[in-house]
């Protein structure tokens, strides 16, 4: 019965919203092979993410959230199925093209920040732009704009170890923003933060979304999941449920006169 409901969710996804989605996944599968074990991490996922949408993905440990995020972020390739990014099929790209598109179209925010300890705040934010071969002057402008945006411009010369967890995550957000990506992918962005810093980062994401950013976030925390427009629930590699929070919000908060 799960298969049917999943398919329905998938069907519904495809029909949701107007225009061509930014991301479209069709019957996506991912199987990990070891010497004796075959693990089906994703089993036929159908998902559309529209431009400007804020989507959260939730589910228990081992349900395939991170694997799904890996594939959406082109960190990994699917075993089967179709994946369109901005209308372009990307499921069979080679490593070099995946790196290039990842660098230009995707901004990552990780649970453990993943700042490089031996680079300064400035250099960490600059890093994806250098891989893009961007001229120095433009890099500088973008880095400073991003750091201003997250309120970390005053710490450009600091190293990650000299920052608090919340500050590190803001730098990570700045790094994700600097390249003006098509989508921001956040993997448990508050997982390593205390509640105060976690709130601050979530507020930042909310603001970015209001400004038009497309965000896809994996989270365990239902409070933060509700910040999103929509939440999809994964279980055993399948999307088993979906909640549209916008309708909920509209119901709870009647439009102001």
């Amino acid at each position: 019965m799960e298969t049917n409901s999943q398919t329905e969710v998938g069907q519904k996804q495809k029909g949701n919203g107007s225009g061509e989605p930014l991301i479209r996944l069709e019957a996506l599968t991912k199987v990990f092979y070891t010497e004796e074990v075959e693990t089906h991490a994703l089993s036929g996922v159908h998902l559309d993410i529209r431009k400007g949408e804020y989507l959260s993905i939730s589910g228990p440990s081992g349900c395939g959230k991170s694997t799904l995020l890996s594939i959406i972020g082109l960190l990994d390739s699917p075993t089967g199925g179709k994946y369109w990014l901005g209308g372009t099929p990307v499921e069979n790209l080679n490593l070099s093209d995946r790196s290039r598109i990842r660098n230009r179209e995707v901004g990552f925010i990780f649970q453990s920040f993943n700042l490089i300890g031996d680079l300064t705040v400035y250099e960490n934010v600059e890093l994806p732009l250098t891989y893009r071969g961007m001229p120095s002057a433009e890099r500088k402008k973008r880095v400073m704009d991003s750091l201003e945006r997250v309120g970390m411009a005053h710490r450009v010369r600091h190293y990650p170890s000299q920052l608090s967890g919340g500050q590190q995550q803001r730098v990570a957000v700045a790094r994700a923003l600097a390249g003006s990506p098509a989508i921001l992918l956040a993997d448990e962005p508050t997982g390593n933060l205390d509640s105060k810093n976690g709130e601050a980062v979530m507020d930042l994401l909310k603001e970015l979304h209001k400004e038009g950013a497309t965000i896809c976030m994996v989270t365990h925390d239902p409070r933060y999941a509700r910040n999103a427009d929509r939440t999809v629930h994964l279980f055993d590699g399948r999307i088993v449920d979906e909640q549209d929070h916008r309708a909920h919000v509209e119901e709870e908060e009647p439009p102001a006169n």
Partner: protein
Amino acid sequence: MTSLIQDLKYGLRMLTKNPGFTAVAVLTLALGIGANTAIFSVVNGLVFRNLPVPRPGKLVSFGFMCKGNPGIPATSYADLQDARHQGAKWVDLFAYRMGTDGLTVGDQTDRIATSYVTGNFFSGLGVQPALGRLILPSEGKPGGSDPIIVLSYSFWKSRFGGDPSIVGRSVRLDGKPLTVVGIAQKGFRGAWSLADIQAFVPLNVSEGPSFPWTDRTMRNLFVLGRLRPGVALSRADAAVQVIASRLAHEHPKSDPGATAWLLPERDASLTPFPKPGEFHRQVASFVFFLALALLVLLLACFNLANMLLVRATARAHEMAVRSALGAGRGRLAGQALTESFLLAIFGCGAGIVVAVWVSNLLQSIQINAGMNFRLNFGFDARVFLYATCAAVLAAILIGLVPALRAARANPSEVLHESGRTATGAKSRLRSFFVVGQTAGSVVLLIVAGLFMRGLIAVEHMDLGFNPDHLFKANMDPHEAGYKKAQAQQFYSHLLDRMRAIPGVKSASLALLYPSNAVMAYMMPVEAKGHAIPAGSAAPTIEANIVSPDYFKTMQIPIVRGRPFLDSDTATSSKVAVVNQTLARRLWPKDDPLGESFSISGPNGPWVKVVGIARNSTYLSIASKPIPYFYLPVSQNYQSYETLLVRTVGHSRAVMRSAESAVHSLAPGVPVWGVRTMRQTLDRSLAGFHALWLVSMLTVTLGLLGLMLAVLGVYGVISYNVSRRTKEFGIRIALGARPRDIQRIVFRQALILLTIGITVGLAAALAMSRVMAHVLRGVSAHDPLTYASVTLLIAGVTLLACYIPARRATKVDPMVALRYE
């Protein structure tokens, strides 16, 4: 470009952030690259350096030999003239020989190395004068008188302070008045790159009017040539072969079966009289030592590769982050390689400092060889290129695996917190490096051990004479202008004086002393009644000219007959003492005593054998027994002599008395080389010095190899202990005792060691055939060396592993279980 600058900046930051790692890495590379570059600078200085003349590639060495005479391929003046005229179309031949003379300017006499040259010597080489003029092609001919001398630039600077007024001044060379006509160009010190020639004189200055210019058996010239424009070496070589055949036909008595050849001048870098193929054999022995040095570099690289692999594992997550942010494979690999190259650049810089120091040390070695040697191991473009190539090789070796690992960074790992521990493949690679290091180290130590054992064996071998309580001093009254009668009287008085000194057992004179490989006295020998076969030349045999007490002084037993006596005078019948090998060779079936031989052709005069001396060591202690004979000083006058004195006890006190005796008897006669025979052997390349140098070199390389292997095994075991901390914690929590844990650690070390030592022993055995060519006094399979090395490397390495093994036993289960 921006990427490269960023990678360089980041690489530098990473290196400065880990100063301990960087220092160890740079030092490791410095030792590896330094050892290689130092050895190459020696090879370069000895083998590859060209003469400082225009177009040195067009210079050739001319060799001439006759059938049945395998001696030195030197050429007689008469044969040179014929070859020169007949081969003028292809090559311009010119000749020289070398010697030492006393140069007197005012009241001061200096012993100098002199080159006696044909008139076209300088024009053929293309050397220009720095001042005045050089010897002209019209000079130096037989019958001519050209009392001129040209000084080398460095001698002019050091002896005369660069005073230009020396040109035109009169000087005396061995008493002969000569005029200084010029100074040779800066940097030119003679036609043999190893000799430091201080003056050049025309050939007819040394070979006076009585010299047998037309005697084709008087082969004493080293011949070089310059190929004519457009003539290939092979073409000119074919021409001189034809010329030699013609000479053999025209002069069957003196030049039977004559052959000649041309070789690139470079082949004459180690010896001024090279034979075909000899240069390549000499280079092969250098290649052996270069290969040992390369092995050290390889071990250093294995060591560093291991360290970088550990770092790469630790930085796998960073590489995954970079990959996730869009870095391509090439960019990631490039960054890893940049760090390796930075290490290699620093290692190369430090290695060059090490190499310069070692080269200077080697260059400063005093070679006791009877004439001035110039070892120039300086750094030229070729040495720097070699050091650079070694650094690039090192960078690739140490950086390749980490670069490939970086390029394979899995970006999806950034979403997982695990995956930081080493995989089995990585551990296997590290183990491979350790096995390689151990095996290489075993090879190096075995080579070092064999050379050390060889040195000890040679030092204790029977030399055929007793080198203890014996000293020598060299002198040449001719250099102070003494005539024959004066010199003979001086030597006679000197021997009387020496015998009167308390503590002197006996004293004698000899032209040559053991291990003086530079000076040789060789004569064609024909036994009376044993005609030389048609088409063959009389064999050239080495000889010495000695005074009556020589055999007593050297303690060389006369096995039959008698030594020379005072009654063997210039007017008595000519006599000789032969050694056992020559006796067997010339008279294999007859009693040599009373037999005669000639050193002046088939018609005599004849020299009668009065004694047979036991075989001894002569020019080189490393040589096998050779045929040899002795002639008495009284019948064969030589101005240059070596005073040999045997003392009752230590020689040092008597040495001073000997020097004083010479100075009081003949104040102007220079005395040099006053040393005990042990010192002489120890400092002579033909004695123990070469073996000692090679032994020290191999021991140094062996110890470097051992250090690197121990570090490598220690590093891997230590890393594995830290990687298995949790496992050890669990084991201890489950009741494992310290010795159980130590057994696990040592087991791994023992497995690696056993494989490494086995591979190393097999490699050393496989190399034994090559080693047999360079070893003296010991078998290349010497079981004691193999066993000692095995025990040494196993012992030292296991001792080093005790530290991580002990650490493993100290793991706190509670801490360990929270590990990671």
